[in-house]
């Protein structure tokens, strides 16, 4: 029901008669209004692609009742003539926190963490908040609504973005009519998830990204199990999840790689999340596309950095500079790749940036129709509300914009934003254009008056007949003109005031009040039209956009490198096989494999590399690395986290990968940290620089898991206030292992029993427990342990526990006191991956000696040297040489410490670790003996693809310097143009070690 009032009062006077019809009314008498409003002669975008050039939109009771070129206008209709104007569906932002309460931060005590929840009736993890409904705390925010309305939005999705499972979101109409009881269009329309901890909870788990991913997995498994009626206790969170299964599922990722992760995770459970991205999707567009996910995309393009101070500018990361340059192309790239996405205002510093940035994206090639779709039909479809919102078809909400022209034209004025038939005025559509030249007469005095500038805010220039300038100020509001001008004969502050109401006349006349209070009349006769000053309409020139690289950081490649046929001639070849180190030998690489080793080899298709005087080795393998991991190397929230896996969080875009290659490393085991006795699963990767995370994963890799002992797991160095988690002693560590292995054994047996039972007798299936499942794999010899270890007592302990459970520990990593129990390790059959010379950094490494590796080796234990350190990893050849120095090992044996031996420890020696016909062509060309301090890597090759080449590296450096300079120039230009800039900032060097706890 609605009535229309003169425009003049609309903002001030709100009709109080919009309550739903069955609502009692104690404020007036019932007043039904079934009148129509007809908007005629407008260009109407029913949808972005269905356009009526000159038509009528007829609305009633907040809905579209008719739209078309010829519409019969009922008698009880108010007609608004919109000749020359356009009508668009109002925009939809399906991802906001409009009107919801921000979650309260928990009383975070830095001194202690909570491990186990004290919540009753809910899921065991407090970061699962699926029971939260945003509508329950919803309160309409008029002020914020106005911001949205001014930006063209009519509907917003609103949810509380907090936690891993965040609960449901509502769909809200931005109907600023106080009495409208239809603002909540849908109270539960979306169900939200994200890779973020709830600020409302102190519960330690999950402390890492991989923990969050594992938590989501377990949550869905538990949901399924609960659904089948297996649980004894009530779980409000799981019930909510089950109830909300059919809502629109939205996962907040805010990063391209996280989007890939969430999409993959969803697929495991048959879910196709809508992903709220981060604006950097263009950097991995092929993978984004093949994820088949639909997106919600923010447009918070970074501001240019203020690079005017070169000392500060030099501290900026190249990737940050590039991101500024390329981010505006994201929408175009997404759209060109046929990815379905809606736009959101999320993350914008201020709402005005929305239009600015969207226009910028359009300027950088984003199609205007696609832009309109991303704001109307796409979000409507994503929300399953295409019949009601996002278009102006009959039956849809009367949510529309009235504009002066094409909505994404810079000059276009947005006049009104109607939501559910309620008008919101952004710019006064009735404002008359009084611009022009006038003869102004006040009493008997004549002036020349020029009115110019914007229609809605014109400015005034007045000159007396003798051409002296007269100060004046002109304002137009609600069709009233008021002009103040200084009295011409006076030097004092004496002002005359002129007013008039604008009507159809071209001559303006009205009341004049002179400075002394006398009233008279004035008039102004138009003598000439307004002529716009010929300001060169500056065509904003686009910055040159740098091409995307893989990865899109320094030293990336614009073209992914390809497999080559390579023939190395006359190299010194370190075979790591019984042939040993052979001189003057040729090696042929073909189809990614070592094809031949010998003398006088030839191949017509091969690129020949003269390797005379150079050394060719198999690539270095680092058994213990923590580089290229996204958001946390430790899931420290539980004492066992076997359910988490580094495979979920490989970061393909880490500059350290390139640095590894420059040090001759081709394969690494990315291990979970050592914050807990049972850590997470490993990822074994090959450093295929430029490839996506999943492509880096070693194919059919053996399953590994990190265990840890000693000071880290018992939180010895966490400060005095933190020891709250079991275990706090080595005694407790044994109990953790025994407990978990026993439980895993029972778990495994219960599943085996269940699987073996015939269908008829099938009891209820046991709960799937990803943690115990993983540990059971160890018992079943399907997964290997790499255990962080230092002192002899704990080494013996773990071997004993393993033997009790009838399996063997695969590797002790670090193992600095291994030399003390070398015989027992040999007997157990465990290998050692140790440091060459580290010691003295903790109490437990006080007896560490640089002779450890050699003693173990000589005792018949398989020994490798590892890095646990991004920097040392690229000098592992030097570390291997220390086995020569301290242990007097042959160079051949020492070299195996960083190649063949880690390959064996990782069960990869069938494919890598030596130069042997048929093995992967993962090889390194050195300018010198690789164990020499003077050795440098010339080429690093993985499966026949050259990923590092020292000559190309030099070229890349030149390119990078050139590009940096170009970007700095662009930013200076930006600053020069008066655009706002941000302070330079430095990027944190992220280097994880075993005991790194932060994300």
């Amino acid at each position, binding site marked *: 029901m609605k009535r229309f009032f003169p425009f003049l009062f609309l903002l001030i006077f709100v009709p109080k008669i919009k309550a739903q019809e069955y609502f009692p009314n104690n404020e007036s008498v019932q007043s039904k209004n079934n009148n129509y409003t007809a908007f005629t002669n407008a260009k109407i975008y029913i949808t972005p692609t269905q356009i009526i050039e000159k038509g009528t939109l007829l609305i009633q009771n907040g809905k579209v009742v008719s739209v078309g070129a010829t519409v019969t206008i009922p008698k009880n209709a108010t007609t608004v003539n919109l000749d020359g104007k356009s009508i668009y569906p109002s925009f939809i932002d399906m991802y906001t926190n409009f009107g919801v309460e921000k979650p309260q931060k928990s009383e975070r005590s*830095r001194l202690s963490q909570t491990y186990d929840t004290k919540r009753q009736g809910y899921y065991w993890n407090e970061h699962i908040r699926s029971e939260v409904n945003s509508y329950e705390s919803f309160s309409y925010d008029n002020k914020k609504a106005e911001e949205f309305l001014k930006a063209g939005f009519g509907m917003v999705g609103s949810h509380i973005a907090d936690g891993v499972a965040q609960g449901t979101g509502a769909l809200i109409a931005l109907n600023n009519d106080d009495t409208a009881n239809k603002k909540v269009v849908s109270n539960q329309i979306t169900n939200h998830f994200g890779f973020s901890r709830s600020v409302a909870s102190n519960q330690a788990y999950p402390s890492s990204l991989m923990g969050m991913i594992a938590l989501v997995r377990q949550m869905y498994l538990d949901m399924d199990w609960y659904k089948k009626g297996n649980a004894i206790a009530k779980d409000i969170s799981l019930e909510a999840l089950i109830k909300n299964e059919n809502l629109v599922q939205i996962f907040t990722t805010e990063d391209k790689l996280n989007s890939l992760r969430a999409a993959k995770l969803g697929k495991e459970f048959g879910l196709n999340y809508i992903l709220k991205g981060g604006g950097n999707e263009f950097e991995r567009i092929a993978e984004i596309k093949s994820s088949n996910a639909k997106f919600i995309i923010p447009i918070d393009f970074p501001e240019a950095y203020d690079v005017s101070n070169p*000392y*500060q500018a*030099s*501290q*900026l*990361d*190249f*990737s940050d500079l590039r991101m500024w340059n390329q981010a505006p192309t994201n929408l175009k790239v997404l759209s060109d790749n046929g990815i379905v996405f809606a736009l959101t205002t999320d993350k914008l510093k201020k709402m005005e940036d929305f239009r600015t940035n969207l226009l910028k994206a359009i300027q950088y090639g984003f199609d205007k129709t696609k832009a309109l779709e991303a704001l109307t039909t796409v979000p409507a479809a994503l929300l399953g509300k295409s019949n009601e919102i996002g278009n102006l078809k009959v039956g849809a909400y009367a949510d529309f914009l009235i504009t002066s022209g094409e909505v994404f034209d810079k000059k276009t004025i947005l006049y009104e934003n109607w939501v559910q038939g309620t008008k919101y005025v952004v710019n006064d559509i009735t404002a008359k254009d009084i611009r022009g030249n006038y003869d102004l007469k006040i009493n008997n005095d004549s002036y020349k008056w020029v009115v110019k500038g914007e229609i809605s805010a014109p400015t005034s220039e007045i000159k007396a007949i003798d051409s002296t300038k007269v100060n004046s100020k002109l304002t137009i509001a609600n069709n009233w003109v008021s002009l103040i001008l200084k009295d011409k004969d006076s030097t004092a502050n004496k002002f005359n005031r002129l007013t008039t109401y604008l009507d159809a006349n071209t001559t303006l006349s009205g009341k004049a009040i002179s400075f002394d209070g006398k009233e008279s009349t004035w008039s102004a006769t138009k003598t000439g039209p307004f002529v716009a000053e010929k300001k060169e309409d500056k065509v904003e020139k686009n910055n040159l956009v740098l091409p995307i690289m893989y990865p899109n*950081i*320094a*030293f990336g490649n614009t073209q992914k490198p390809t497999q080559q046929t390579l023939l190395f001639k006359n190299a010194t070849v370190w075979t790591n096989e019984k042939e040993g180190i052979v001189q003057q030998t040729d090696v042929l690489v073909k189809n990614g494999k070592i094809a031949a080793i010998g003398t006088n080899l030839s191949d017509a298709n091969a690129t020949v590399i003269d390797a005379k005087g150079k050394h060719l080795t198999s690539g270095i393998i680092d058994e213990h690395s923590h580089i290229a991991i996204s958001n946390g190397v430790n899931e420290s929230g539980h004492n066992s986290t076997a359910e988490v896996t580094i495979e979920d969080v490989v970061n393909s875009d880490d*500059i350290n990968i*390139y*640095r590894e290659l*420059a040090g001759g490393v081709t394969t690494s085991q990315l291990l979970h940290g050592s914050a807990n006795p049972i850590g997470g699963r490993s990822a074994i990767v090959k450093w295929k620089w430029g490839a996506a995370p999943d492509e880096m994963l070693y194919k059919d890799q053996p399953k590994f898991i990190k265990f840890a002992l000693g000071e880290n797991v018992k939180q*010895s*160095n966490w400060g005095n206030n933190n020891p709250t988690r079991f275990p706090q002693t080595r005694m407790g560590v044994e109990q953790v292992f025994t407990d978990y292995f026993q439980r895993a054994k029972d778990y495994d047996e219960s599943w085996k029993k269940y699987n073996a039972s015939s269908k008829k007798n099938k009891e209820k299936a046991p709960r799937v427990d990803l943690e115990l499942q993983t540990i059971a794999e160890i018992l079943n010899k399907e997964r290997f342990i790499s255990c962080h270890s230092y002192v002899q007592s704990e080494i013996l302990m773990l071997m004993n526990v393993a033997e009790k459970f009838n399996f063997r520990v695969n590797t002790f990593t670090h193992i600095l006191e291994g*030399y*003390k129990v*070398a*015989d027992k390790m040999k007997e157990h059959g465990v290998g050692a991956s140790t440091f060459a*010379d*580290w*010691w*003295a*950094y*903790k*109490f437990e490494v*006080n007896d560490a*000696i*640089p*002779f450890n590796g050699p*003693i173990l080796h*000589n*005792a018949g234990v398989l020994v490798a040297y590892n890095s646990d350190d*991004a*920097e*040392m990893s690229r*000098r592992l050849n*030097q570390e291997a*040489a*220390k086995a*020569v*120095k301290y242990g007097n090992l042959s*160079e051949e044996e020492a070299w195996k410490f960083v190649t063949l031996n880690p390959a064996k420890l990782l069960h990869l020696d069938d494919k890598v670790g030596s130069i042997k016909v048929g093995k992967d062509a993962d090889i390194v060309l050195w300018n010198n003996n690789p*164990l*020499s*301090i*003077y050795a*440098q890597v010339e080429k690093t090759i993985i499966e026949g693809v050259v990923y590092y080449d020292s000559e190309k590296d030099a070229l890349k*450096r030149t390119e990078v*310097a050139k590009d*940096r300079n170009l970007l700095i120039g662009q930013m200076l230009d930006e600053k020069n143009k008066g655009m706002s800039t941000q*302070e*330079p*900032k430095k*990027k*944190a060097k992220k280097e994880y070690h075993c005991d790194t706890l*932060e994300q």
Partner: protein
Amino acid sequence: MNKKIYLLVLIFSISITAQQAPASKQSKSILILNGTAHLGNGKVIENSAIGFKDGKLTLVADATTIRLQNGAYDITIDAKGKQVYPGFIAPNSTLGLVEIDAVKSSDDESEIGNMNPHVRSLIAYNAESKVIETVRPNGILIAQITPRGGRISGTSSVVQLDAWNWQDAVMKENDGIHLNFPVTFNQSGWWAEPGGITLNKDYAKQVDEIKTFLSDSKAYLGAASKDRNLIFESVKGLFDGSQTLFIHADNELQIVDAINLAKSNGVNKIVIVGGFEAYKVADILKENNVGVLLRRVHDMPEYDDQDVNLPYKMAKILTDKGIIVGLENSGAMERMNTRNLPFLAGTCAAYGLDKEQALQLITSNTAKLLGIDNLCGTLEEGKDATLFISEGDALDMRTNLIYNAFIQGRKLNLETHQTKLNAIYKEKYNQK
């Protein structure tokens, strides 16, 4: 039976001694003959005669051209095919100030407070640290013991690494004062919720505080005052040239500001410690005669687009510009890592310097920067007989095998608790 006794003795000796007993004073003169001598000043004598008496070098010569009287030296060591080097110097070191990184009670490296020039590292230097004995066998025989923390950390001293106590160890007491120059960017947040690394808004203020401190000190020292101020008094050496101001700074702006600040306040002996971006302001360094103790070169580039090998190349870049460069090794696990100092120099040789130049980075250059080049840093007659013989190239891991080392003529015991553990367990497993 015999074996068992031997084993017992070894274990016993470990449990009673914290370190190897320091060598006693040189009583017999020694001549090292026929070794390849790397003098530390860029020169090499292929077939050398190096003689020392009473702790001082008395002969550094080409064995093929000099004639020695029989019996001129009590002991002759034939070093044919071996390499002779001056003892390596580890500047900006915390050896002896911390025993085990994670054990707070063993940590004496950093005092609370901001301006601590009066705090002296020397008296906390634990000459019996078990870490120290493990660095000597790799050729590191001298160190500058340096406090950490605060704006002015305190006063360092130079010691030789074979002594019963700090008093016996000292070579140059209170050689320098260490200033941690304000950073231009700093990290916000805390470890669990790290913020960005943003401009240090207080940079100018913090620089001004140093300025004020220096001018206050100078004013105080210029006139007799009734009220004694230990802090001001402790920096006297900066103004009379008897002490060096070691400015710890990496960023180019810091370095320029630091040099201007020091010079304009009458501090003329300056060394930059760290100097990651010193290569960008080499001309200013050269002009002001400021040397650099380059931060651990086994390091990552600072920014994503820097040359991946930039840290390895820096010494070459600076040396070519005519700057005196030494290598320092502060950072993670710095004390135990001291023994890898020679390999830092080796890496600099791999990336551009010639081997003798690289050697200077840990010998004569460092000696000059620490103001101890009258005593050590090169093999020259009259200097301390602090030197060692290696089987091969001491800058390369494979051949850094030192079997004779001398500090002030005293022949060192190169055994360590680590070599003893090695012996015990090799014995246990019947390994050769």
